[in-house]
């Protein structure tokens, strides 16, 4: 299978993830779609590494996975905090950064 197939899949995953982030109100799901985007990127790395015969792609993918782990930990901690504070994880609740119109 040529690289375009894999890349197409990567793009698909990435777009779906992106839409997910924008669409879903629930922070957790948004967070998961971010993971999805990351995986899409990982896939493209590995596809290139396979077709260029160079291990570097895989190394990058490996570090991305580590990064994803760290990011997930901190992200979830924040979500827990938010939940404790507001009692819900709906993004519509956290709006106090709103610009007070016409100050």
């Amino acid at each position: 299978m040529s690289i375009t197939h894999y890349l197409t899949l990567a793009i698909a995953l990435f777009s779906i993830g992106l839409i997910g982030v924008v669409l879903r109100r629930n922070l957790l799901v948004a967070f998961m779609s971010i993971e999805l985007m990351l995986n899409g990127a990982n896939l493209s790395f590995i596809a290139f590494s396979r077709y260029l015969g160079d291990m570097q792609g895989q190394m990058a993918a490996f570090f991305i996975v580590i990064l994803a782990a760290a990011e997930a930990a901190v992200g979830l901690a924040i979500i827990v905090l938010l939940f404790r504070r507001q009692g819900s994880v709906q993004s519509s609740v956290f709006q106090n950064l709103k610009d007070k119109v016409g100050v």
Partner: protein
Amino acid sequence: MTILFYILSALAVLSAVAVISFRQPVYSALSLVVTLFSLAGLYLTLHAEFLAIIQILTYAGAILILFIFIIMLLNLNKDELKEQTPALWRRIVLALLGGFLFAGLWWGVKKLSGDSAKLTEGFGSIASSGKLLFTEYVLAFEISGILLTVALIGALVLAKRRLNYLPEEKN
């Protein structure tokens, strides 16, 4: 080989769509697991055994478990979970936008021709990856270690903080 690719990629796409469309976060978490597994399979077809294992171990194993754990921990009550489905027009617009995005990137990608390069022996295996990790990328490896510990402490400090005020009552 190609059938395997198609099955796995279809599976991945479908479960990805499922992730963002299920109303219950638990179900989307599970469908995410499916996506990760299908991706691991794809990694195998790309001779990246080491990464396939890593994928399953960390991603599916650790991160998703963490997600589910958090969901259970917050034991969100029923109505809280069932957020109202976003308005129809929003979904259509986003779908269109996503499609446009996909088309744009695909247009860029499809120009990429290129036959697969000849692979060296033991390409993508754990041994070669390990060797590389500890020779060329040793600095990055160590730093990622530190990164993880920092993230660990960060998460602990954030989550552990005893809120000195009660969360407002949900109206």
